[in-house]
């Protein structure tokens, strides 16, 4: 319930941002706002805001605001959240930290090695074999077949 409220509020604030930015877009031609680049985003933002408020009101009626504290505490303790953050960390390291700073094949090798070690897919030999296969597929075979440059 608390999570519903938090995501609902995020959507509400997002839609308010869209509405404000849409109103700032220039209005041209004789149709005024209807031909403005902001017309469809404005209309979409308004409907989005209304729908998100339905979700928020429902969540508040269910007492969601009382559980926000316990939700934040459970996030720190929940194993699934920790695993998600680790996986996200590996992906972010690969995409933001490695790609573009070293050859793609090396970045892909490091990413697969780290993530397979973390996920404990097997013993050291199995991890190395799967890392090499995965790297060969992603960084060598497919780019060659499709004649595409790699990052």
């Amino acid at each position, binding site marked *: 319930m608390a999570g519903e409220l938090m995501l609902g509020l995020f*959507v509400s604030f997002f839609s308010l941002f869209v509405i404000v930015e849409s109103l700032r*877009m220039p209005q041209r031609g004789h149709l005024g706002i209807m*031909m403005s*680049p902001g*017309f469809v985003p404005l209309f979409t933002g308004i409907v989005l805001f209304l729908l998100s408020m339905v979700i928020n009101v429902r969540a508040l009626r269910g007492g969601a605001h009382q559980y926000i504290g316990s939700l934040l505490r459970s996030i720190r303790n929940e194993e699934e959240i920790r695993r998600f953050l680790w*996986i996200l960390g590996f992906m972010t390291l690969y995409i933001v930290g490695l790609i573009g700073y070293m050859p793609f094949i090396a970045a892909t090798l490091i990413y697969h090695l780290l993530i397979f070690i973390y996920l404990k897919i097997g013993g050291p030999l199995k991890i190395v074999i799967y890392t090499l296969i995965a790297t060969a597929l992603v960084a060598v075979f497919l780019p060659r077949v499709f*004649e595409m440059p*790699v990052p």
Partner: protein
Amino acid sequence: MDWSLVLQEWRLLPEVFLKLVSNPMLMLTLALGGITGMIAGMLPGISAVMSMSLLLGFVFRVPSEIGLGLLIAIYVGAMAAGGVTAIMVNIPGTPAAAATCMDGFPLAKQGRVKEAVEASFSGSFVGEMLGEAVTLVLLPFIALIALKLGDWEIFLVALVGITLAGALSGDNPLKGWISALIGLVIAMVGMEDIWAYPRFGYTTELMRGFNFVPALIGLFGLAEVFMVLKMKTPYQILGEGGWVTINVKLIWKHMATIIRSVIVAVGIGIVPGVGESAACWLGYDLARRRSKNKDNFGKGEVEGVIAAEAANSATSGGALIPSLVFGIPGSGPTALLIAAMFMYGIRPGPMLMLERPGFVAEIVILFWLCAIFNRLGAMLISPTFIRILSSPREILLPIAAALGVLGAWAAGFTLFDIYSMLGFGVLGFFFRQKNYPLAPMVLGILVGRFADTSLRRALLTYSENLTQMLTRPFAVILLIFLIFTIVSQVRSWRRKRRKRLEIISNSE
């Protein structure tokens, strides 16, 4: 519409068929192209449009029927195989396979992988064959309707597609519609088409807008990777061994569903830009409404898989009409086909049937032949792919994520595309945590720009008298269907919610 030209194409069918099947190089190309397309369709991160565009350079070194045959084979193969990853990994290989996830993945989790994949290939095969046949027979009527479609109708089809996807892809239509509207907003980031104004263009990359492919890979692919790998013991799918064949009994049992899906798909496929992705949802919805097992849809209903795949394969027929007859692409792959045709000196448009008699018949026959080759190819390679996709998720999904990075890079060869894929993956994860479906968001991103431009052009066209928009018959039908869909979905959801609350209060 000159009827003699259309009759000419029907008359030339046998001669063109013989000319094509007696070309061994072409047959080999269709077979290899089909396998390439199927591999592309089954790999999460590599899409049909991407494979076709990457091979476009190679296509110009060969004669036109071989080059076009190769592109069509890849397209048909990818559309057919996109359902396999939708079923086994819950990551649709193409956007049009998103509706297949609804029932395909639950079937796989129940251990009915072979049944689901057979249903997918069977629906896809018959959908493709019937879709082309319907297109050829109805060509003059479809062309007439296509001529009558204006910006207002295009906008309404996009809206209907988004509304249906939002209503059907989750338990709560409100969440589905929120997801779809967020997709619409994302689509509008960047330089808009009428005034060239950079909406939400706070940086040079944002002025370019979000590329659709990284968004698709992030929302469908990366979000699924996060959702599954966060579990200490992820689910395992055990694919059964053996050949995956066309299940004739299954096809016969659901023939009415297939025919309905095909007719809807061909009709919607003619709408440029939005038809292909919206058609699978319309076909799925129609099957659900008419089914005796409608409550089982979304929980593992074979009929749902067949309807979605038949619709998504049959759209190629409808999408061909505006492409060939008017030179307006009905979908991404048909846009590439038009590009290839121009480079071969073939001008799609109203003069095509005069300048190149038999060309339309040739394209239809190529689609038929590709459908047949694909089924043979599917029998050969799908056991291998099912075995591969049955690997432990801890091995398969990190590789799928890396493939997604490659796919996002190939979309535009910029790091921003890869970064946006990561961002969409995180967004998709949080939305899925709270049961917001992602297929409507993807559809919103896909059709958002078309819908926006079409609506504003329609308003400009009818600026003197907006009520004229309500006198266009196709538009009125779409509006009524839209209102009916919204009202019926909200009522159905409220009814289910009331029943759930009654059950809870009775048990207390």
